[in-house]
């Protein structure tokens, strides 16, 4: 059986300092997966290495059994919100339409079909009434949802998301998770960099714990343990124990 995602021996270095060291990760089934780890652990870098946005010092990545360059149209991406200039003169709908550019190819402009598709995606994230607004007029949570809608418009089979919950309030977070779960239930895979450890157990089925090296990866119930979290974060945070024990208690109760 070919793996959905096969990351093999990936090493990435900036200025000769390794930020990812020999990472191996294989996923076979559609998952809603979180990548967790402390600052500087290489979480974003792992996503960028998979997408070919940063050069790998060594290693190999395959998606759906093929090199990434051969399956780009099946891959969706949500970059970090801070990576773009929100003062840019485009409307909300313009940004979501960018999700259809991969399918369109050179020179062809998005037409009626693409606009309808983009509107459907905006509806899903609850921003249907905002399509004509300039993106700078939105709140942080709304901007994050615009990026999510753009990814939905890509109609991909596997999504890589760089902190899709950064700076959003609890209500928006619930809404985003709802959309992600829907995606997973329709057979897509989502791999998201995630910071809030408290929400990991109830929201993600699969966890990748990363700290330059891969600490552990697997179903949340097996992997999200106090022991693994201590290995990942260096055992400095009391909250880690609490979070991990909560998971244990939950799995015992089941």
């Amino acid at each position: 059986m070919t793996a959905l995602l096969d990351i093999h021996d990936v090493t990435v270095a900036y200025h000769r300092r390794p930020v990812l060291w020999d990472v191996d990760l294989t996923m076979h089934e559609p998952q809603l997966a979180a990548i967790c780890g402390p600052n500087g652990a290489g979480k974003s870098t792992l996503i960028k290495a998979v997408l070919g946005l940063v050069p790998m010092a060594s290693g190999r990545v395959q998606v759906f059994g093929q090199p990434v360059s051969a399956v780009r149209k099946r891959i969706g991406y949500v970059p970090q919100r801070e990576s773009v200039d929100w003062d840019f003169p485009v409307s909300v709908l313009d940004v979501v339409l960018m999700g259809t550019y991969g399918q369109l190819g050179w020179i062809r402009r998005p037409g009626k079909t693409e606009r309808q598709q983009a509107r459907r995606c905006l509806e899903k994230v609850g921003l249907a009434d905002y399509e004509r607004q300039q993106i700078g007029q939105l709140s942080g949570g709304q901007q994050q949802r615009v990026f999510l809608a753009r990814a939905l418009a890509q109609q991909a089979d596997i999504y890589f998301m760089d902190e899709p919950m950064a700076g959003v309030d609890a209500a928006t977070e619930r809404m985003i998770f709802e959309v992600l779960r829907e995606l997973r239930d329709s057979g897509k895979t989502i791999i998201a960099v995630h910071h809030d450890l408290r929400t990991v157990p109830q929201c993600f089925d699969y966890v990748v714990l990363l700290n330059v090296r891969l600490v552990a990866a697997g179903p949340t119930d097996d992997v999200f343990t106090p022991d693994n979290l201590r290995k990942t974060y260096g055992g400095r945070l009391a909250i880690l124990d609490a979070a991990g024990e909560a998971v244990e208690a939950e799995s015992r109760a089941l």
Partner: protein
Amino acid sequence: MNALLQFARENYNTLVVLAGVSLLGAASGIIGAFAVLRKRALTGDALSHAALPGICIAFLILRERNLIAMLAGALVSGVLGIAIISALGRWTRVRSDAAIGTVLTVFFGLGVVLLLMIQNMGGVGSKAGLDSFILGKTAGMTRGDVYVILTASLVCLALIVLLYKEFQLVAFDNEFARSLGWPVFRIDLLLMSLVAAAVVIGLPNVGVVLVSALLIMPGAAARFWTNRLSTLLVMSGIFGFFTGLIGTMLSATLEQLPAGPIIVLTGTTIFVVSLLFGIRRGVIARLIEHLRFQRQLNELRLAGSSPEVDLL
């Protein structure tokens, strides 16, 4: 009608020059708007200053004023300057603003030295009129020059129209563009080539010191009027067109003054008017919006409403 034709026939050369510079202004405005959005506004400035030594060297080799050769020289040394800036950024720890400042001044200094050497050579050198390349001169344009401008401007415009979607996405979110597998580096290179073309073609008319203003100002002015990219580009083109048109007309009547500064001052006027009166982001529009908001706030306070009431 006959009188108009008569006028057109008598002032044929003036009309040709007007058309050329206006078109150049429109093309520069549109290309420049994209360059500014891609955060490469200073590249045009560095390129134009770095072009001066190339102009002089081309003249020194041919010993005559050959426009095509001198513009080719300008392009070569301008691109060399940009390449050095990129190399400094990539392989040394010099910051990009310092790299641009250094290369720009070194090349321009070298150009001025070569220019003075040529002028002191006597004979053809002193009459070459190369100093018009520093501050620009529109009166000296021939019909051939205008055809060159016309062709180049149309090619630039066509490329921008065709690749609108590509330039838009790369300028807004180049990482996303790369995740789609787009050749972002090559799209950037194409944009920079358009900037280089606009700069080099503008050099004889506006001069190396000020030609980048023709790239930057129309787009900056248009931004006060709109939040839409397509409108922004059209307005940049229109602003650039009128900057060239009015600037050239003024400089035709003020022949003792160099054309470049007059064109730039025309552009500045458009910019200042936009800054004040632009309906989206102009100073007055923002002030009105602010006052309206304050009034709403006060009314709500007087009414004793809670702050949840939708202010937006």
